[in-house]
């Protein structure tokens, strides 16, 4: 959806300082651009639960992090997410890749299509869903809104493959 340089320039315009992530096939296309971005530090973790806590620490220290993970990582990291954004009410923002949404044929029967949106609803997070290219500007708009309101937020981004 976002070309690598386009994504980096968007994050830079938003003032984001750190991307805490685990790449998947789609998100991983941003790897080199993120690693070489002069104003962004890429912080890779081993498992997605770490990402929310690490981003929280960055926020506490005065940075502006974003969590970038696939929806499978959202499933894995639920307790960490709950703890950070609900127990501690920290306004951490995440971009979640929605596996199989644009191409269900490559992983037939992928239950990401069944559970991703209900799980996000269950976590009661302010979410914007980018279903296609035309909706891309909503990411920055939503991030700015969440930042201004000091609330956590999620940008759910449709992906086409695993």
């Amino acid at each position: 959806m976002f070309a690598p340089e386009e994504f980096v320039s968007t994050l830079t315009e938003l003032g984001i300082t750190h991307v805490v992530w685990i790449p998947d096939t789609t998100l991983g296309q941003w790897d080199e651009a993120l690693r070489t971005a002069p104003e962004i530090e890429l912080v890779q973790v081993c498992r997605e639960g770490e990402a929310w806590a690490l981003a929280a620490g960055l926020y506490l220290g005065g940075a502006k992090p974003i969590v970038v993970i696939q929806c499978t990582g959202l499933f894995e990291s639920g307790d960490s997410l709950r703890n950070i954004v609900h127990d501690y009410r920290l306004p951490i923002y995440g971009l979640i890749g929605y596996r199989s949404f644009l191409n269900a044929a490559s992983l037939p029967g992928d239950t990401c299509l069944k559970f991703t949106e209900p799980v996000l609803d269950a976590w009661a997070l302010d979410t914007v869903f980018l279903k296609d290219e035309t909706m891309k500007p909503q990411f920055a708009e939503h991030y700015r809104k969440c930042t201004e309101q000091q609330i956590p937020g999620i940008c759910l981004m449709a992906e086409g493959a695993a």
Partner: protein
Amino acid sequence: MSTPQAMPLAEALAVIHQYRADAVVITTMGAAREWQTLEPHPKDLVYMPSSMGQGPPLGLGIAIAQPDQRVIVVNGDGCTLMNLGCLVTLAAQAPKNFTLVVVDNGVYEVTGGQTTIGHPAKRADGQPLNFADLARAAGFTEVYEFDDVESFRFEHEILHEPGPVCIVLKTTHQTEDISARSPGPPAERIQTLRAALQS
């Protein structure tokens, strides 16, 4: 067979408390409970309620954002087992201002003392899981182990040496007054820490 030596958790924490200087100190589970008996500090985070295993990455984030701020995370062995990957993440980031203290008593103390899967009784070789070896294998180069509090106290300067540092403390476990507890609403307490970090 002789009983392995170990130190009381409260005494181990008293050493950290005494020599923390201006460090952020994040405590989890049993350590979080006992830390509340000590004089509070604006840069404390009694990480209760917690997401078990996420204390180290929380501290790592602070350490990355503020490279001149020492961060000490006191993590239980059960918490460490919940998120062993954090050792690899920490070693990869290699913050010089980060100290991980693993308090290893072999049990989930706050839930009643059930042995962890790292306890000798649950391991095929009958040997305790060696957290210091795990830290070294993950990439930590500054790794220390203590089973008596006076040795730890004598070497207290390692809390602040260039890191990342991993200190494994063999501790006894309490059998009374063991429940996890929080000193107050977490959202308010973490804002106190945030304000202290911004000042």
